């Protein structure tokens, strides 16, 4: 049962073959036994989760169940959750019990889903390996010497290790897709503006987007149905008719035009990853799709553009963490400036400080035009590339990450190497496009490879269809790293 998809679990709950309390209990048991080794959760709150499960059982008994009622969902610790410790992976918020729910949390609560715990993450979502968390690194369930990816590494690990049937993540430069790829699960970053950012602790506001992480495209679609929708509290939230993201899952792929950017299949990509991706594309040809070469010439600028814009926004977004109203305050200080200095010096980790420094620098008088303004111009070029490419194809594919999961500690001392592991994912955030990663076999050391699927704006249903058809034809997504009997 721990390996079931959301549709199956929902059916069992509806048929009263199992109660949400029992289901939640089973996942909690597995989480409690595995978490000491994998560190996927920062907070487990058994009593609260079980109380939610019992409330869900009452909803089901009253005939008021929705698709996700009674299903345990792991929530990334970036979402403010009323009454729960909400740390964002930082010492700065290590004492912050949120007094309110993020929009995403509200939506899951309204749907009757059960919050099974708050997942570990890179501090303030800044990282690609989950090694920057104040709560220690998460380990990859396929190989505990490897990183799970980041920043939603806890969520990816929890789903991959079957500690939760599904989880939420957030993606600023690849933080859903890269850990999904490295942990062998499915993850989707929606079009910017589709999921409200209200209550999601900001890293880089113009890039941040929440999305689902699960075992299959079908599960992602069910999650997305809950997560999306207009929210007046987020001025960048888009007002659109609600969609059923499961509606196109079963469409055949006959005639689908897959764009393969020539810039993606070059020297940066490892052979093992290239082989797995090419095999996946071969599978798509078998399913009736054809491939066209497209070009994204500005894509090589993505990493430098991102590392100007994201830190610029972050440096300002993180100013509120000053020790004045909530969060960490240094125990001793001499005056106001000393309080700021010490609280922030002690409350933030090295990577966060690095990005605050970069961001402060690029926004400074005399540098703003050369960095920030220039990067904004290039951002438009990068988006324009995709618009051109989508004139020739329906969907774009490539590797999610140039390598399989690397070892813990392997890149943590070299920020630039770490940043390059997001080379494929970042351009998508800069353009505001939707994209996903699905499991596509294994590479070196038998570590998972992710297939990156990029859609046009609002093409989530189509992307899910493309992913689902592949998952019907293959079984990578049902492979499990840790046997259920542990």
């Amino acid at each position: 049962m721990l390996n079931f998809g959301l549709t199956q679990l929902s059916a069992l709950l509806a048929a009263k073959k199992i109660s949400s309390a029992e289901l939640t209990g089973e996942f909690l048991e597995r989480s409690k036994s595995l978490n000491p080794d994998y560190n996927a959760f920062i907070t487990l709150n058994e009593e609260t989760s079980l109380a939610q499960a019992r409330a869900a059982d009452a909803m089901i008994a009253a005939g008021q169940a929705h698709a996700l009622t009674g299903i345990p969902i792991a929530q990334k610790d970036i979402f403010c959750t009323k009454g729960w410790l909400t740390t964002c992976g930082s010492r700065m918020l290590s004492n912050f019990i949120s007094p309110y729910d993020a929009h995403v949390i509200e939506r899951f609560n309204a749907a009757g889903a059960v919050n099974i715990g708050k997942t570990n993450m890179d501090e303030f979502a800044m990282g690609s390996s989950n090694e920057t968390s104040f709560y220690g690194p998460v380990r990859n369930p396929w190989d505990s010497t490897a990183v799970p990816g980041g920043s939603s590494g806890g969520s990816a690990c929890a789903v991959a290790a079957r500690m939760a049937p599904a989880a939420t993540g957030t993606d600023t430069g690849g933080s859903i897709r890269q850990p999904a790829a490295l942990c062998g699960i499915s993850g989707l970053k929606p079009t910017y503006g589709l999921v409200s950012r209200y209550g999601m602790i900001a890293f880089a506001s113009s890039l941040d987007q929440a999305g689902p992480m699960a075992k299959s495209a079908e599960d992602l679609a069910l999650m997305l149905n809950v997560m999306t929708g207009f929210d007046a509290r987020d001025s960048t939230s888009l007002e659109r008719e609600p969609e059923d993201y499961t509606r196109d899952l079963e469409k055949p792929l006959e005639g689908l035009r897959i764009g393969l950017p020539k810039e993606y299949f070059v020297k940066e990509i490892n052979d093992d990853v290239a082989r797995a991706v090419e095999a996946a594309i071969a599978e798509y040809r078998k399913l009736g799709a054809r491939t066209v070469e497209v070009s994204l010439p500005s894509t090589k600028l993505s990493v430098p553009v991102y590392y100007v814009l994201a830190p610029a926004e972050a440096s300002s977004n993180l100013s509120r963490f000053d020790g004045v109203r909530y969060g960490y305050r240094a125990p001793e200080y001499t005056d106001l400036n000393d309080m700021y200095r010490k609280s922030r010096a002690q409350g933030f980790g090295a990577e966060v400080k690095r990005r605050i420094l970069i961001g402060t620098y690029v926004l400074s008088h005399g540098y703003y035009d050369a960095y920030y303004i220039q990067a904004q111009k290039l951002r438009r070029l990068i988006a324009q590339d995709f618009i051109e490419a989508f004139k020739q194809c329906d969907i774009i594919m490539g590797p999610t990450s140039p390598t399989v999961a690397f070892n813990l500690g392997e890149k943590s001392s070299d920020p630039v190497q770490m940043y390059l592991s997001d080379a494929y994912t970042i351009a998508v955030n800069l353009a505001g496009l939707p994209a996903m990663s699905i499991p596509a076999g294994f590479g070196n050391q038998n570590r998972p490879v992710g297939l990156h699927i990029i859609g046009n704006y609002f093409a989530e249903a189509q992307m899910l269809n493309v992913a689902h058809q592949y998952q019907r034809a293959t079984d990578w997504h049902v492979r499990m790293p840790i046997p259920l009997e542990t």
Partner: protein
Amino acid sequence: MQWEIVVGLEVHTQLSTQSKIFSGASTAFGAAPNTEACAVDLALPGVLPVLNRGAVERAIKLGLAVGGKINSPSIFARKNYFYPDLPKGYQISQYELPVVEGGSIKIQSGEVERVVRLTRAHLEEDAGKSLHEDFHGMTGIDLNRAGTPLLEIVSEPDMRSSAEAVAYAKTLHSLVRWIGICDGNMQEGSFRCDANVSVRPKGSDKLGTRCEIKNLNSFRFLEKAIDYEARRQIEVLEDGGTIQQQTRLYDSDKDETRAMRSKEDAQDYRYFPDPDLLPLEIGEDWIAQVRRGLPELPQQMRARLERDYGLSTYDAAALTGDREIVEYYEAVVEKLPSDPKLCANWVMGDISGYLNEEGKFFDSCPLFPAQLAQLLTRIKDGTISGKIAKEVFKQMWVKASAQPVAWKHSDPGPDINLADQIIESQGLKQISDSGELEKLVGEVIAANAKSVEEFKAGREKAFNALVGQVMKAAKGKANPAQVNEILKKKLTE
């Protein structure tokens, strides 16, 4: 050397919205600390700003009233700095593209008439308040004011004296109240001025180095601070020194300005467009809608009062000092269209005087325009004299003050026959019956033989004394014109 003072003002007007500029919390003044600060105002993790359209509408009103350009789009930017009463660590303001650009305001200072150009007006949020007392060496933070909508109105350096600066500030103060975007309450900080002051040799067209004096919250302080600062700068220059560009504070106790920080340690605010807020688009429809809702502006109204009612420039200006005064005035004239001048005299004289004495404004005037109009009608039709009218007015005021409601434009008011009731019940009606008056005059002539003699000997003064005696005998109720006429007739018979 002759020096010329050059002044430009930055005025922070608090916009009169019910809720804050980026949150739903109330903007009411005087609540217990931190009870009007919601999650957004506290800058909890994850919260986001949502722009209050009411604040934008007020900015558009100002833009239209001063003939400025309404920018679309305009951009909200973050001004980054750390301070404990600035919860986000940045203030949301507008930098490169403000909502209003240009426009002008006409001022009158003594004999000087001047058009002061506006640079811009931009929307921003206020910060909270740091409370340094009562916390035993610690500082308390009150975030009730955080997020209160402000419109910062920036003028060009077009004023040439402290008096002109005050005239500008007063005109602007009147205008923002007139168009209903700000309550203008200076004690509560709803209208705060920063003055940029420099001096230069008279005749020069180059600007001198300026100093900015922060946070002047009364017209008197504004005037004194500019006077002090100009004197200070002139002294420095005449001693052969140079002016350092500085931000200065005015100390009203000592009547001097003091350096706060110089240009060298000015902060780098690292402005950049706020990614949480989309560019503010203001469509032509919206502008047109706001324009339709805009009242007749003071300048247009002054011209109309002079033209249609034959009022002097002085009267027209005084009446349009405040929208409530002129609305009251026009409601009186509506009832007594034959004598707008008489109406103006009473509105600015007696009504204003009584209100002043009680510390009230026209919006809480107890006497209704129709009530005043009846009193004035009774003067006009000769029922009472102007002198008696003052007495009737006094009694009307007392009675009206006991009325439960203050005047409102739409309300005709209770008891419009108040003046007649008082005149009737106390027999104050003027004696215009010529038979009765002739009898009175006859008695006075008989009793004052000496005065009659003197008058006949050619002493005009004696006539006045006789008139006075008649009025006295009539207890003030005699019609003076008639008394004159009858007396003259009888004396020359």
